[in-house]
């Protein structure tokens, strides 16, 4: 036990992402609870959509239902000004799903590297005041991803649900000047949605309804207009926010199963050689998608591509450090599981840098929840326990202790 440097104090690790919230015990290799950050609630007054931010704060999460308004939590990352840190979601994760008493466990929370000081102080406040945790620490997802890969210094490429970030990490500290991030995944998503709902040469415009809204459909030839009937009883009650949630989910699923990138950049010939993909929407019968320039992610005209982000991050770093960083590239986040992405990234990097080594966990769980895993490793280390912000310290020093301790 001691030789691994581990000492488990039954700490909790909470990793709040834009699409899901991960919670579990430090020392485990996978989070015990993975909870979507979007949840439904029944509004008290039957007005139009209530302001989402207000509604989310004090309602208990429930699975989305037809008549419920939808609170889309953390849609833009926990740090954007519109987002709120929802204690109800955390309470749901800790009390209803993990079924633990937060006052018994020290808790480690993750934050993106561009989190604002106000936000992390608010998080500390929630933890100490609402949940009465004995100790608290907030760590950076970039650093944690590097730790999950077993590296102290790394260039972490994290492609999440809403944000792509490139974080240079040196000795467990983020180089803030080299940190870059862009909303590339959102752009990919929007582009995919646009591709689907507009007619093209191989498919009619697709209506993105989810399965539970479809009463029946008749099979048709590929490429012809779909024939289906919707369930009117459910359809009429679906609120706009729920409808858009369903739409986004359909698009997300389509991206995950059909979209991909080519190994060597865009090339008409290589694209033509790829086999067509078969996909069936709830509203439409079979459709075949071949690689085309219109398809998401193979489109080279996206702003601020990942290689651009990387080179921007590197130029902000010291020349001595660049070699080290490029030798320790860590690929993380669910978005990096896009078909062919790893090979493409490798090809692009090898073309531009002499010595590149990419660490990309093959296990999808490790890849998607690398931030949580790193937190789990960190919070179960014996040497880490001196870094916790204890309740006593919080009461004594107040908010400044957060910035002082969590560098």
């Amino acid at each position, binding site marked *: 036990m*001691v030789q691994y*440097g581990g*000492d*488990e*104090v*039954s700490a909790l690790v909470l990793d709040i992402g834009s699409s899901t919230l991960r919670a579990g015990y430090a020392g485990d290799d996978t989070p015990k609870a993975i909870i979507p950050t979007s949840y439904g609630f029944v509004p008290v007054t039957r007005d139009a959509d209530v302001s989402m931010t207000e509604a989310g704060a004090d309602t208990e999460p429930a699975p989305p239902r037809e008549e419920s308004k939808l609170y889309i939590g953390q849609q833009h990352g926990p740090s954007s000004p519109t987002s709120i840190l929802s204690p109800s979601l955390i309470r749901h994760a800790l009390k209803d799903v993990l079924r633990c008493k937060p006052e018994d466990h*020290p808790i480690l929370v993750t934050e993106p590297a561009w989190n604002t000081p106000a936000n992390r102080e608010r998080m500390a406040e929630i933890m100490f005041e609402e949940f009465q945790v*004995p*100790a608290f620490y907030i760590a950076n997802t970039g650093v944690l991803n590097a730790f999950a890969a077993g590296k102290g210094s790394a260039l972490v490429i994290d492609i999440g649900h809403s944000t792509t970030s490139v974080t240079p990490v*040196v*000795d467990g*500290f983020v*180089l*803030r*000047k*080299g940190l870059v991030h862009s909303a590339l995944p959102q752009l990919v998503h929007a582009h995919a949605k646009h591709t689907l709902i507009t007619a093209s040469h191989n498919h009619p415009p697709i209506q993105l309804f989810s399965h539970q809204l479809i009463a029946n459909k008749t099979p048709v030839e590929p490429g012809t207009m779909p024939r289906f009937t919707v369930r009117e009883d459910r359809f009429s009650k679906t609120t706009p926010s729920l409808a858009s949630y369903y739409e986004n989910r359909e698009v997300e699923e389509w991206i995950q199963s059909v979209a991909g990138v080519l190994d060597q950049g865009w090339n008409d010939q290589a694209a033509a050689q790829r086999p067509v993909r078969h996909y069936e929407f709830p509203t439409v019968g079979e459709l075949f998608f071949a690689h085309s320039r219109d398809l998401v992610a193979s489109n080279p005209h996206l702003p601020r591509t990942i290689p651009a982000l990387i080179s921007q991050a590197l130029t902000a770093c*010291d*020349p*001595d*450090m*660049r070699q080290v960083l490029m030798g320790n590239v860590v690929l993380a986040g669910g978005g990096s599981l896009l078909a062919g992405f790893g090979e493409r990234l490798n090809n692009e990097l090898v073309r531009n840098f002499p010595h590149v080594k990419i660490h990309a966990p093959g296990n999808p769980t490790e890849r998607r929840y690398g931030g949580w895993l790193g937190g789990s490793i960190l919070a179960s280390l*014996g*040497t880490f*326990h*001196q870094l*916790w912000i*204890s*309740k*006593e*310290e919080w009461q*004594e020093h107040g908010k400044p202790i957060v910035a002082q301790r969590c*560098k």
Partner: protein
Amino acid sequence: MAGASAADVRSILSLPNSSTPASTQPKRAAPLARKPSGISRELYSLIGPSAPTLVAQAAKPRLKQKPNLGSGGSTKWEWRSFKNPARTDGLELGHWVKANTDPSADYPFARYNAKSADYTYTQDEYTKLLEDPEWTKEETDYLFNLVREYDSRFYIVTDRYEFATGPPRSMEDLKDRYYSVCRKLIRSRPWAGDEASKSQIISTFQFDKEREVMRKKYLLSLENRTSKELAEEEALYVELKRIEQNEKRFKQDRDRLLRTLLGAESGLPDLPIDEDGPLGDPKKKKKGVANELDSPATPSSSLFASAVPRRAQSAKSAAHDAMHCIQRTDGTTPAGTTTKATHQAAYLRSFRLAYPKAAVAAKVTQIAAELSISLSRLVMPTRDTLAQHEALLEGITTLVEMKKVTDRVDQEIRTAKMRLGMRESETPAETPMDVDEDVQAPDTPGEGRAQSVVSTRSGRSRKQTGTTNDRRSVSVSSVDTSATSATRAGTKRQKFS
């Protein structure tokens, strides 16, 4: 064998069955049933049932020991709360520990809480020693705080450095300031140890800002090379290596020539040539051998040709073979070893496929690929095809080698031309450098040809005189050579006249 019973023997010898069949059967069955499993059957049939007790005991069936799970005693673990002495507050965390560990012991991980030595200074020291026009006291304080906070990780210090009123600082600025302050502090403060350790400590805080900046600049320019520049560099490097090699070879040749011309008189030590010999010669020898082997009359074919007559068959069998389309081969066994008609196992011809030599294999396969021929596999490895295949391989190999040679020669010609061009363009510049040689022969106009011989002579004499008097050697040699050249010129002139 041992188990062959009497009944078997009888039946083999077709003897009538024994009169007491009933008695033999149980006799045999009884000992068999009691045969202990530890003794082999043969041994048992020899010694019979009167086995020594020891053996019987030793032969007790040995089973694996049952795992003893219970008696070791399970270690008790208990949940204990502990205090971390590395913390300043009274936070108590809990963890599982073995019950037999000492509860009063310090937390084992607290000892990793190492602090690096940091330097502080008083206001007095600052005003006396550390004033710097570019740094204020506040900024220096800020820098020292940051360095302490991040344990001298200057990459991170530079990243987090945000001093509102100060100018932007590079990592070199920060390091320079920090280390210079530390040096001054150590130097001025009373030192407990001896001078050596003090200077050693100071040397660890040495920092040369100019050099570091220069190094970073070089590093950047290295990184920013384009691929074209990289290729050019590579080519230049290869060319340099080649020139060096040529130079060496030229020198060797010259030395060898000198030695053969002048023998022991040359004054050159004999050792190098002996050293060069084993180094240089085997390569050449090897090459020569290889060339011989590669000569069109391939050894295998010649062997084959010489082997065939030796195995000449009678006219009758030849006719028989021809009628039945039988071709007798002697395989590829070397002819010399067939003193005895050894048995030759059947083999597939495809196993005896010729392969290109390892040195040129890549190029040969490339050429074969261009011809869209697979060298490693023949669809129909008949005798004729194999012969063709071998011939093709030979052809390709020769082609590749010829190409190599022509390439080399071409390259040499090119460089020679380039050098010629350079020399032509530089001749006016070169002449003044040869002054000492020109001075030697002012009285021999138009006798340039003698120069080379003369210079070698001068070298020799220089060597000889150098042993006696180094200072005068140059003048002596020049006198010597001028004298010889004069005499030579004189003789030549005589001839001409």
